[in-house]
């Protein structure tokens, strides 16, 4: 699902971000970022499983955003998804927030 709030696009994938869905997600995210919004927030509250492929899709989005001066963050991860994100060290490269509102207000 994609919504807009305060010049931010909010991307809310659901289910699993795995080897099947991650490439498609990455393509769609890439298309959205071509419009160069002020910011992009990936709301992961409905993601139950984040695979390494999913992590890399998120990372690709972060890089595209950085190259185009788009603010970028992920938010609302469940405990396991958060574990994967932090243990992999990806939180050093992508900003994370507890809630979508915190992300919008902080970016």
């Amino acid at each position, binding site marked *: 699902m994609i919504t807009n709030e305060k010049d931010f696009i909010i991307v809310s994938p659901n289910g699993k971000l795995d*080897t099947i869905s*991650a490439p498609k997600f990455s393509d769609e995210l890439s298309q959205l970022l071509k419009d160069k919004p002020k910011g992009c927030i990936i709301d992961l509250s409905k993601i139950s499983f984040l695979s*390494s492929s999913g992590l890399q899709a998120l990372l690709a989005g972060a890089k595209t955003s950085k190259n185009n001066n788009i603010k970028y963050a992920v938010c609302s991860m469940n405990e396991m998804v958060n574990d*994967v994100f932090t243990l992999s*060290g990806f939180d050093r490269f992508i900003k994370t927030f507890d809630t979508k509102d915190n992300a919008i207000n902080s970016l």
Partner: protein
Amino acid sequence: MYKISSIKIYNNLDYIDGAVEYLRVVSKKLNLNEKETNRICYALEESLNNSISFCFEPDTEEIIQIDISAIPSGVEVTIKDHGIPKNPFVHIPNDIDEIVEDKSFDNVTNENSDKIGAVSDFIIHKILDNYTYENLGSNGRMVKMSIYSQGSKIGKEKEETLTDMDKDEHYDSIRFSQSSDALAISRLFHSTYGYTYPNDVVYYPGRLQELLKSISLISAVAVSNKKNIIGHIALMNPYKGSKVIEWGMAISNSLFRGQSIMSKLIEIIMQRASSSNFYGVFSHSVTNHEFTQKICKTYGFSDVAILVGYTDINLSFRHINNKLSQRESTLINFKPLKDIKKVKLYLPKNHKKIIKKLYEYMGIKVKQNKDEVKNTLTQSIFSDHITPSLNNAEIVLKVVGSDVIEQISATTKKLCIAKVDVIYMYVNMEDENAINNIEEFEKLGYFFVGVFPYFHHNHTLVMEYINNIKFDYDAITVLTPMAQELKKYIQKLDPNQIGE
């Protein structure tokens, strides 16, 4: 360990959910909490996802076998498949930062299975207690992953003080342990070491109890006149099917020092070792003090290898040592238990002299094997295993094929991504192909650190890779002239020392 179930699925992503949900149900039944259950389930899902996506030829139907076993205080999952026996870690960067910064990731639609495999492996290493990858050559591959229930770990024990102790309490006797002693042994370790003892089995009474019931741990305890356990020592199998046994887990309650408890414990355990069927007994003697090395010398052990930086810097003897300045190195002290006078081995030309000398100290004469064996093997077989509590890894090279350098190079990179500090590689000196590759291993950054008889092979050469750490060899204390010579020898080979 008792197996509880085995399931088989096809290499089709649609089967993953069922397998993961089954594991979730079993894990809960085995008392893993929600977080532990989520972690082992994540590891299975991630591993199957990558395996099915990248390790099978398109449009082929293959079976993947998943064994779920109850282990003392935890769950072990073994995944075996006969897919493409490729190493998924070839051509990967050296560091997670490098992966993340790699510009090629801007286009993830061109999925690169090698890099995905590396990230996947890195994450799984971080969330589990044990993770072993075994390359079985043409028989495919096997992954073992396990997690322990923190709920079954011993809780914090209050430190005993002299005032807590009954003033009339004193050493009474030594006896072999019973499985019912497990909790008291765990308590003794915790009150002495906190949670810093390298072998974390001591903190899980359930695991200890199972080991005591089996023959894989022979343990003796010192008991006070009040029937409290005040000392412990053990002979442990370092791995299943080992021909050698390790003495260790030696501890005595500091409040009973001066009563020769440790000497009595050592005496009984050495007698037991001598009457066993093992080929040898060894110890990891710490090198920040000489106490263990002196015991080994007394009991006729020889110095055979120095595992530089074997244990993590945070692991220490709570009541004995100050904080360590670097990872602790251990001297492998070995004593043969079979009367072997001579052996015929393949010897690498650069280390021939020192190997002969190390064996000579054990009373074994080494003759160089000059028989030439034509190597027609293409695929290597080996395993790699990380011990998270020590943050080290080991590679056991079982069969050496023409792909060995490529495979070991890739595995080394994988282990470096997992941020292990040191890697030990065990090479068979009865295998000409293995010994012929020593110089190539050295070009990868491995260096000779000694020999280790009957450890994984009958006659093992030990090589080490240090992941970018410069050790202060002056802080490694070794007692005997042989050990001192070996230390100097190793220091000269350590590539991280070059440029001094």
